[in-house]
């Protein structure tokens, strides 16, 4: 059972080893001559002003939370797709009602203009 995940593990370890190797080679082989100009913060040719931390618009948050809700919907669809042939028509109708309720929410957010980006 777990042996099926061996390729994933091999993939993970090769990816990790590659990342380590490249960072290591880069730090070992590259020449390092830091200077005042190189170390100074650079922003499109002019002097840096302000902080990189700035307040983001709250609308990004709205987009993210709407995404989470439909992401959870997908999580419910996974086991349903696996056992659909066993649970038959009842399962199909159950998922139909589930999706129907969520589509009401989707229509609400569409009509309300939550997906618009003025």
């Amino acid at each position: 059972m777990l042996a099926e995940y061996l390729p994933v593990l091999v993939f993970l370890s090769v990816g990790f080893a590659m990342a380590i190797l490249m960072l290591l080679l880069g730090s070992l082989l590259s020449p390092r001559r830091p200077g005042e100009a190189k170390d100074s913060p650079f922003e499109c040719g002019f002097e840096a002003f302000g902080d990189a931390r700035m307040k983001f618009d709250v609308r990004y948050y709205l987009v993210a939370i709407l995404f989470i809700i439909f992401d959870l919907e997908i999580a419910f669809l996974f086991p349903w797709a696996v056992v659909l042939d066993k649970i038959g028509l009842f399962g199909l109708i159950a998922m139909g009602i589930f999706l129907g309720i969520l589509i009401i929410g989707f229509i609400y957010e569409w009509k309300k203009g939550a997906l618009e980006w003025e």
Partner: protein
Amino acid sequence: MTFELFIFYVFSAVTLFSAVGVVTARNPVYAALFLILAFFTSAATWVLLEAEFLGVVLVLVYVGAVMVLFLFVIMMLDINIDTLKEGFTRYMPIGILVAVAVAAEMILVMKSKTFDRPIPEAAPLDSSNTEAIGEILYTEYVYPFEIAAVILVVAIIAAIALTLRRREGVKKQDQGAQIRTRKEDRLRIVKMKTEAKQGER
């Protein structure tokens, strides 16, 4: 030590390391990235327990969506770590008190009779974990399943009600109006006499 146990130790060690990183990282964005690593290795632990569905959902929902939200919240709050660190020594006695209380509670609970019982053997499944969940979720527990949909709709409406703001005075392109416009709307031809050039007077 079997190979499986070795893999478990590796992933657990990374989970613990990244969990410590979450609370010790100076930059909150780094803390969020450590949390993503902790979620990933926890998902690997789930898979080792043959709970693939939970592992997939952990990556899909938490890493894919919740952490995006976390990062947006961190950026939205504009956390300045220097002002947060202020008053650390002043609040430390209360912090230590709370930590000791929570630790004592946890030890008392773990030592209690309720938890002092043999670990039950997992019932062997004839099919995969995901199928076992699916077979009862959409039949036996269909009512809570539909309730979950209603709760998600409530979350949609609450999020929109709390954060949707109409912004006044946004200069926005209206393609329809641009296409429908005619020459007469924009251009005015004024008849006037010819004027002499400035130098020829």
